């Protein structure tokens, strides 16, 4: 029962976090492209495609996690994958000494520089996403 409630809690937190994270990126794809480019990890030919598609993948998975019971686990696993990739990108750039904005929740270069805190935050989100993925698809939590 505890696992179910933990899973429900994690699902809502992760769903809302990714909803919030996707919106500024959907509104300003040019800024999103620059934020991705500044990681200097993707081949240049893929930067714009990632800027166009990533926010929609975040939004679709977040909506499915919150509102489509049959797709909950798939959505949570997809978000786990995204979080793992984002965390690896931040860790790599920190290792390379690149000082850039995260581009995680805001695309303003002056906000949210990458650092140990962004790694810690992502690790926590990854844990929550994994917990959200534990819930059996399509089942409501037991009443207390």
């Amino acid at each position, binding site marked *: 029962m505890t696992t179910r409630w933990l899973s429900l809690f994690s699902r809502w937190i992760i769903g809302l976090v990714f909803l919030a994270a996707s919106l500024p990126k*959907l509104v300003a794809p*040019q800024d999103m492209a620059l934020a991705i480019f500044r990681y200097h990890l993707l081949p*240049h030919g893929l930067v714009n495609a990632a800027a*166009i598609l990533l926010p929609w993948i975040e939004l*679709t998975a977040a909506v499915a996690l919150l509102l489509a019971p049959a797709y909950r686990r798939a959505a949570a696993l997809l978000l786990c994958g995204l979080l793992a990739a984002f965390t690896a990108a931040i860790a790599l750039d920190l290792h390379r000494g690149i000082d850039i904005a995260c581009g995680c929740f805001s695309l303003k270069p002056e906000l949210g520089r990458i650092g140990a805190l962004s790694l810690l935050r992502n690790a926590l989100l990854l844990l929550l996403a994994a917990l959200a993925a534990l819930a059996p698809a399509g089942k409501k939590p037991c009443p207390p």
Partner: protein
Amino acid sequence: MKLMLQMLALILVATGLGAAVNAARPGRLPWRGDWDRHVETRALQQHIRLAGLNTVQRAVNTGAPVLLDARPAADFRAGHLPRAQSLPFELAPEMLAGMQVPLARNQALLTYCARNDCDEGLELALLLRQQGYTNVMLFPGGLHEWRAGGGAVEGGL
């Protein structure tokens, strides 16, 4: 297997939505951008280190690294980063030769221009390195990014 198919379905829906909205958007983003010629790509190819706002903030607070404004002098007078010195790219060879801007060869230097689509900052960084300055960085966001971050500007009205 079912889970994989569901994940694939979510990705396909997202791809369709992304492509459709981007196509309908007035200032749509091309699927392939010309990032190869972007000033930051050129800087990295030339092994010029890139500085972010944290480094610039340190330069403004402490004077190290030394901030060099590569824009024309009139632009510098209209507003520049605090503590920055004017070293317009076009005049830099004469100014350095005439010691108008005294700099030590091993001093940490940080060049910038207006924003991330100008290249005087990069050109100045390359020129400085060519002239034997060994510790040169570029702030690619320039004055625009500094201002956007709420940074104070010296000079101007």
